[in-house]
């Protein structure tokens, strides 16, 4: 009859060998399968320069000193995914060819902010966040001014690029997805 299963039926040297072999093979399998899968899962999301320029519209559409909502068209390449059809943003024409392009998500937890022209303020509908026309926090819980897009003007057309954060003096602080 076969002996009952027990640790002692395998000599210690062989046990160590089995442990070492299993560890090595296991680690190799984990690495060969795990590394590509982890990269496959996470890396596209972390890509920096993926965001292509968005076409906001002719500069002439944005009156000086005014803030208006614009629906920008992503200039997509041939590659999936196309993401959202249009991207909404607020455009402030500051004169002298200068613009500020504001992200519509509140810097608190992301509710869409509304531009209220008579009041000259942006309101967040979730927790009473209020921003002035330059995106500074006037009241409520948002921790920093409205985020902005970098922009360029080419042949009289305004384009929006990457998103960045600004500090309380409205100076560049960091790219949004650094």
């Amino acid at each position, binding site marked *: 009859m076969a002996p009952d299963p027990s640790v002692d039926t395998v000599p210690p040297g062989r046990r160590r060998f089995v442990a070492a072999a299993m560890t090595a093979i296991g680690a190799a399998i984990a690495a060969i399968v795990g590394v590509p899968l982890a990269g496959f*899962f*996470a890396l*596209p*999301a*972390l890509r920096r320069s*993926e*965001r292509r320029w968005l076409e906001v519209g002719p500069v002439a559409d944005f009156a000086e000193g005014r803030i208006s*909502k614009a*629906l920008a068209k992503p200039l997509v390449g041939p590659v*999936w*995914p*196309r*993401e*959202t059809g*249009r*991207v*909404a943003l607020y455009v402030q024409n500051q004169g002298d060819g200068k613009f500020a392009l504001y992200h*519509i*998500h509140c810097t*608190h*937890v*992301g*509710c*869409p*902010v*509304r*531009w*209220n022209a*008579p*009041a*000259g*303020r942006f*309101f*967040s*509908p*979730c*927790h*009473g966040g*209020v921003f*002035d026309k330059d995106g500074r926090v*006037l*009241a*409520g*819980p*948002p*921790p920093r001014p409205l985020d902005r897009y970098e922009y360029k003007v080419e042949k009289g057309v305004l384009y929006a690029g990457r*998103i960045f954060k600004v500090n309380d003096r409205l100076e560049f602080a960091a790219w*949004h*997805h*650094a």
Partner: protein
Amino acid sequence: MAPRLTAVLGWLQERLGTREQLTRFLFRRLPVGTTWWHTLGSAALFLILLQTLTGFFLAFYYVPSPEHAWDSLTYIQQEIPFGRFVRGLHYWGASLTIVVVFLHLLRVFVMGAYKYPRELSWVVGVVLFLVVMLFGFTGYLLPWDQKAYWATVVGTHIAGTAPFVGDYLWRILQGGVEVGTRTLGRFYAAHVLILPAVLYGLILVHVSMVVYQGIGPTPRGPLARLRRQDYARLYEESKGRGETFLEHLVRDAVVAFVLLLALAWMAATWSIPMEEVADPTDTQYVPRPEWYFYFLFELLWQFPGKWTVVATFWIPLAGVLALLLLPFYDRTSGRSPLTRPVASAGAALALAAVGVLTYQGATAPAPPREGGAVTQETKALPPALAKGAAVYEAQGCSACHVLKGTGTAAGPDLTRVGARRADAWLRRFIKDPSAVQSGASMPPYGELPDEELQALAGYLAALK
């Protein structure tokens, strides 16, 4: 037993050799005091199985892409026979599962069943609870309607506030720089493939531990206070006088059946809230989370500005750790809640806090209307007051104030402000709040033209 059946069982036994395990599983004895409360675990399992089954079938028609998700659900609900019912089972079943899983956790806490020797069952149970919440979070996006989209924007923003890894976490959750096609893809994969695998793996571990350790009894009599050294003896004694699992199974079945009836009734009669298809460019939408995340959303009010991370990260983290590690820091021998006042009081407090926050979330005032909307009521006002009401709307006052149940409760409710404040005071305050009341957080409205200011103050003063 009928000879036919005996023969079949014998045939199976020869091939599978599982008779002994099965007998031990079905006829194991339970301790005295195994009650209806002890059916909550199996009820949760039943609901999870039901969610899995309805989920399988929804997957036949549902298409996880922004172009098709909303339409495919509309198709399920409007065109497919039983579509509304099947989706209803899944939709209401989700909420019911969360309720039952939570009650199960509560039962185990109250009966002190997380203590020796069931510490690990508790830990795995807490992880299961979190997995169930993740099912809720990922499933909420799939309909791709407005509330799904915006709740996920807020949810991923909240994840993004985590210290150090926030930004990475945010993008990994979204699968890119915004909530879009890839977010839907990964939420779908998580919801229907990864989370179920994790869930059932953990359930297997959880249930094996319950079978091995036996169920935690009602802490009465000698079982109310159990020291480690007496535990095995007293528990065995109690089992000697208790019933078998087979008998308890009837209770489990009754509860499962009643839950199914309730769920079927909900699915058949309640309509599923479905909003317009997601529009990422809509700046008038007011996001709201699903009810079981209200407490988190409401907590945000308490921690403004740079303290936000306390509400979005540190408190939830502390809560999860407090739950996970409970058996390791609560080492008292008492099992009845009365014999461990500290743990009971702490839990009652936490529960009350979550309850109050959830209630606040559920009874939050209606979201503010789009600026400038004139209601029937304002039209009926005398011209002077109507002008003030128009200024109120145009200036976006409702973004921070509640008036007759509409608005956001960031500042004081103005429904009866006229009873507290006079016209002149209001005028001064609106112009420069912090000059009138130090520490007032309302931004000044100094640029408001005088006549508008007068109209507004007059209107507010008349609200009594």
